């Protein structure tokens, strides 16, 4: 089900990119605003014990994922979430994300604003001196007979200015 959802999101990404490049007049206009997404740190579950689920909360500054949003304006943000971590040998650890696993940190001192990573959401960035950050936690579900080793995955964050 998640794979299907991700596939549909992938379709959404392509739509956005084509929309951006498809308008002949668009290239002649200055962008409404600019936003740069800069990954700061990955989502790290650390050492997992076989059979023991591990959750990284979005408030866990050391292990959550953080992506810097440098710019200003309103932006549509979509996260393409992986179904599982995989090892080089092809072993998988399922991942689970909930609507509470995302957040936006407008500035380092501001409280976290909820962001549902399971669906596209609009984020308004004021463009203050401290760039906003998009945060992500999640849960890894290693099996009781999970093979030892390193597992990785990637989250793609797509940011699109819907225009005015």
């Amino acid at each position, binding site marked *: 089900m998640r794979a299907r959802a991700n*596939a549909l999101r*992938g*379709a959404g990404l*392509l*739509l*956005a*990119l*084509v*929309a*951006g490049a*498809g*308008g002949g*007049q*668009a290239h002649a*206009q*200055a*962008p*409404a605003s600019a*936003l740069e*997404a*800069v*990954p700061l740190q*990955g*989502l*790290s*579950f*650390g*050492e*997992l*014990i*076989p059979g023991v689920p*591990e959750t990284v909360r979005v408030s866990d500054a050391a292990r959550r*994922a953080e*992506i810097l949003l440098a710019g200003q304006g309103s932006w549509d943000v979509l996260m393409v979430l992986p179904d599982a*971590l995989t090892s080089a040998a092809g*072993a998988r*650890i399922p991942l689970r994300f909930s609507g509470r696993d995302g957040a936006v940190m407008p500035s380092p001192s501001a409280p976290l604003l909820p962001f549902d990573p399971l669906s596209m959401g609009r984020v308004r960035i004021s463009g203050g001196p401290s760039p906003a950050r998009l945060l*992500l936690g*999640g849960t*890894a579900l*290693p*099996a*009781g*007979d*999970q*093979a*030892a*080793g*390193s*597992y*990785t995955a*990637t*989250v*793609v*964050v797509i*940011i*699109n*200015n819907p*225009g*005015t």
Partner: protein
Amino acid sequence: MKKLVLSLAAAAALALPSAASAQVTDNGVISVSATVQTVLRFGASTGLDFGTITPGTAATGQGSIELIRNVGTTLSFPDATALGQLVRTGGTETISPTYTCGVGATATTITTAFTNCSTATLSLAAPTGQSTSYVIFNGSIAASATNLTPGDYTGTIKILATSN
């Protein structure tokens, strides 16, 4: 699925007015990582018991110990020269049984044997997940070696498991 996505993209491009406002997109990729801990330990053991030996009669016995692991493992014997040698309690008389040894999926049948039970090592490939196997020793005492001083004879078999 690919065909569907392309069709959707084309439809979106056509639907956009040529003077649409500028669309700006950016993508970021966040890594997700975990390391599954190595599991390598011995579990319950069944002692190798030759029972009550009748002088002049051969004796046999079988012992095993659980090996629980999720990594490739090398087995060896740290005290090869004294492995499984029995010494009479309160005395100095010894019995030196001959052994065959190896690893099996059950506690009774060797499927992968050591070439010898003193200086040899045995490398076991990493299982697909956590698994339990057994290190098994079959001992035998020749009839000619059982004409001994009465008493209890005991010894130990030490096995070293190292991840590889």
